[in-house]
């Protein structure tokens, strides 16, 4: 890991890098939120199925 970024990079390049990092962070936020809601929906579905099974046992 000997090659670190040079301090000679232009300010345009620095701006580009900052934008890339920001773009990635925003994308991750969106995807993680989508996944969380998908997971919650799936969890509810599973819970509902479990409830049905219990109801059947009672009957």
């Amino acid at each position, binding site marked *: *890991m*000997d*090659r*670190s*970024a*040079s*301090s000679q*990079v232009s300010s345009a390049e*620095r701006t580009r*890098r*900052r934008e*890339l*990092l920001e773009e*990635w962070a925003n*994308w991750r936020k969106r*995807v*993680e939120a*989508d*996944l969380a809601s*998908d*997971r919650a929906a*799936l969890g509810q579905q599973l819970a509902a199925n479990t409830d049905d099974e219990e109801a059947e046992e009672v009957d």
Partner: protein
Amino acid sequence: MRPILLQGHERSLTQIKYNREGDLLFSVSKDHVVNAWFSHNGERLGTYEGHIGAVWTVDVNSTTTLLVSGSADNTAKLWDVSNGKCLMSWEFNTAVRRVQFSEDDKKILLITEPRMGFPATLQIFSIENGLTEPVSSEPLEVIHPQGPKITVAAWGALDKYIVAGRENGSVALIDPQTGECVSTNKIHDLTLTDLQMSTDRTYFITSSKDKSAKIVETESLEVLKTYVTDTPLNSAAIMPKVQEFVVVGGGQEAMDVTRTSSRQGKFECRFWHKILEEEVGRVRGHFGPINTIAIHPDGRSFASGGEDGYVRVHHFDDDFFTFKFQI
């Protein structure tokens, strides 16, 4: 960063995998053997013996209780991790090229090769309660994917889709319930050699013989990042923690090489900044192409398996953890 050399295979490595805790490393090779190692010191925990052909692929479930392996002997085998007992051996018409546990650990997917009139298949088996009850020899689903041969595959987030990578450089989203190909995208010029999911499976990395690796969003199959190298790639992995890096590796077989003078440096694991798409470092050591790369789930070490028959485990130095990419 002194590597630990795992010497226990007599032929080239085909795949290596850490378990979820990262304390164990599983390796498979053309020598028919599955090995389990302690990742911190490289001592061998045990072997899983029974395959009579090259073992192409291995995976371990999230609780490190079950192991699955796929082989050129046309079988996939399910193993009890703790005692090495073979719990199930599924037989097929052709070799098994890829296996993987689903995110919920209840199923495995496997890919069989097309050969001698047998089409390629993507099959799903239930292995729920596999440790305590006999698992079924019959698949839940057999999918005959249309189009070019599938070389790699993995479960996506929440096991909603299976992502398959094909010989023509395309990736496809397959619905595991219906077997339907939901979407496809040709992202590489040549065959896909590896496909590894991010921790939450919302994106993945591919490696290709076209000398590049790519980060792709699972849901859309959109290419987000590209890493272009000067050598055909056999493996690519995403660092899950510590640094926003990816690690890629490959190299050409000696017999494919025309100019030996340019060989130096081709058998290196290359570290790239995942988001900025810039190479940040290389780790050398193998005497032949790198076939498989895995990264510790905590980002503390990484391991590479080579055509040379060695697994090299590298524990990162302190400066790796404090390294900051200068913006």
